[in-house]
């Protein structure tokens, strides 16, 4: 009883503190945002505030970083969220990247990059869709991929959807709230 309450009061993710992996809890109710350690509801792995990692992080799951990471992040089909307390000094390759903290390095978000108002990026961005909330700080080059060579997967999807080649130059106006 007492221990359960202690864990909850720390505001740590449900699947444990520190680095943890595993499949996301299906059907679980999204937690209300915590003021101390906000956690991405969809992220199945989490590097919490206070954790420091030096090296290369590779995987296919979604990842939430609210601590420090230095090195390289490669999530080929996963999504990376850098939390408001997160500090990442690394080149990032992921399907989706959401920045609410600080990133020093190149970001390749294959499908999408979002910079929230608290986000601070020093590095080049490469993506198909970019969303920047007012207040976000960016120091770097933006490359929106519109004419990239298409692989067989993309070609097949385009044929099914009846669309031509090329990505979306999104850049919708308004905030980046998801």
């Amino acid at each position, binding site marked *: 009883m007492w221990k359960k309450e202690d864990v909850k009061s720390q505001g740590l993710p449900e699947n444990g503190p520190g680095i943890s992996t595993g499949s996301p809890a299906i059907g679980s109710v999204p937690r209300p945002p915590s003021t101390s350690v906000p956690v991405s509801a969809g992220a199945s792995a989490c590097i919490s505030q206070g954790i420091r990692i030096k090296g290369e992080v590779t995987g296919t799951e979604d990842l939430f970083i609210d601590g420090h990471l230095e090195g390289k992040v490669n999530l080929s089909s996963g999504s990376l969220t850098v939390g408001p307390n997160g500090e990442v000094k690394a080149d990032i390759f992921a399907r989706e990247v959401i920045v609410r903290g600080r990133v020093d390095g190149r970001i390749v978000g294959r499908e999408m990059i979002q*910079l929230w108002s608290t986000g601070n990026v020093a590095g080049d961005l490469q993506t198909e869709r*970019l*969303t*920047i*909330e*007012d*207040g*976000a*700080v*960016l*120091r*770097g*080059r*933006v*490359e*929106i991929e519109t004419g990239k060579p298409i692989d067989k997967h993309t070609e097949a999807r385009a044929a099914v959807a009846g669309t031509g080649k090329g990505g979306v*130059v*999104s*850049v*919708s*106006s*308004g905030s980046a709230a998801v």
Partner: protein
Amino acid sequence: MSFLNKLGIGVGAGAGAGARRDAPITMGGSARPRSNTPAPVAAVGAARAPELRESNRVSNGLKEFLWNLDGLGRGTLLDLGPAWQTTLSFFIERGFRVSSEDLLRAWKDFLVEEEGKLREATGRAAQHTLDVTPAARAARFLEANLQYPNSSFDAVLLWDVLDYLEPVVCKQMVANLTELLRPGGVVFAMFHSKKPAGFQRYRVVDSTTLQVISSPVLCPAQRVYQNREIQDLFGRYRTMKSFVGRDQLRESLFIK
């Protein structure tokens, strides 16, 4: 409040007004001491801070800027203002590759860092290790910023950055920008005809309209440039064209 504002045609009195920003602005004319940290708005009598708002202004300078870039194809643009979604989308959708660097924020961060270094050096009684002359400071700032290969941009959005930088930094920075521009490249800059009362940022709404956004003061205005001084600053450019607005803003285009 300026006379133009009383007439309702001053800066920030446009139709788009009303959208409040999170942090208040510190006005030069108010009784509140100037500070980098946002302070709560004093809402009393004559010292009342103006409502923070956004307004639109027609920009002939922007129109001309775009006209000069027309037909460039996949050009490269350096935006020295904040990374606004609308501005970036506007140029990206037109095929530009955009680099963004908020120079005034970098300047503010640099000054804070310098202050820390100076305090540290004073603590160690070794002031001589840090050259605090404006020229040395300008060199240090530019060593850490605007680091791009020569001739890598077709266009630069300079906004009103020069009004807020130390004159020595301005001179050196314009020289650096000239190196970054390709021959025929265009710079879009703005200069205040009077010392600005507040602090504003700008974003592109469409090809003839800019949105003026009141923001918390990042750094105080340093000086008001006269036409002759502007011409001297951009002496290496072959063409200069200016548009004077009713809101005390001069928009200028410089073509290398």
